[in-house]
């Protein structure tokens, strides 16, 4: 099984994602990508602040 086979598909658009952007899990029954989540919650998502380490 390749990494491509393991990736999930966003439940809203055809994007392939490694994890659900809402719950951050790699296994989720309704995975959603960043873009679709931002649309759904009205630009609610914050970009994680990069840690300087």
């Amino acid at each position, binding site marked *: 099984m390749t990494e491509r086979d393991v990736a999930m598909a966003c439940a809203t658009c055809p994007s392939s994602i490694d994890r659900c952007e809402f719950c951050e*899990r790699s296994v989720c*029954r309704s995975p959603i990508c960043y873009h679709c989540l931002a649309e759904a*919650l009205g630009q*609610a998502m914050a970009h*994680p602040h990069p*840690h300087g380490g």
Partner: protein
Amino acid sequence: MFDYEDGKLDWLAAGLPSEGTNAQRPRAGDIARKDVPTCRLDERLGDVRDRARWAGWDACVVLNEERVVFGLLRSKELEASPDLRIEEAMRPGPSTFRPFVSIEEITAFMMEHDLESSPITTSDGRLVGLLLREDAAEASLDLHERERHSDGGQT
């Protein structure tokens, strides 16, 4: 004449007050718990866990000096070795949400995804509070009840 280029979304994302029909409805920032324990990257996990649990919490948000969210410790992370530094134990860069998100929308997401809590932050990443699913669900239910009664009981 002046142009506030970043506009209404910037204003709302900063958690500032607004007027209008949506302003009467509870939002994520209103319901989020402001008293969530916080800690720094360089603290010892055991000390932070003790402090959080003494305060009745099973979660802690990791902040820098400017209250920008760097990470999150939920119960699973708090159970790690007490001598770890927070930076090693935390879940870095958690998904966060803006204060203006409607409580109904975020409750639906939290239920669907079985998420216990979500940090609520301003547009520049500063912590507003931690939204607990149980609080979100209760506020959403209260809202439905109020709206049902204001419709005269019509369904």
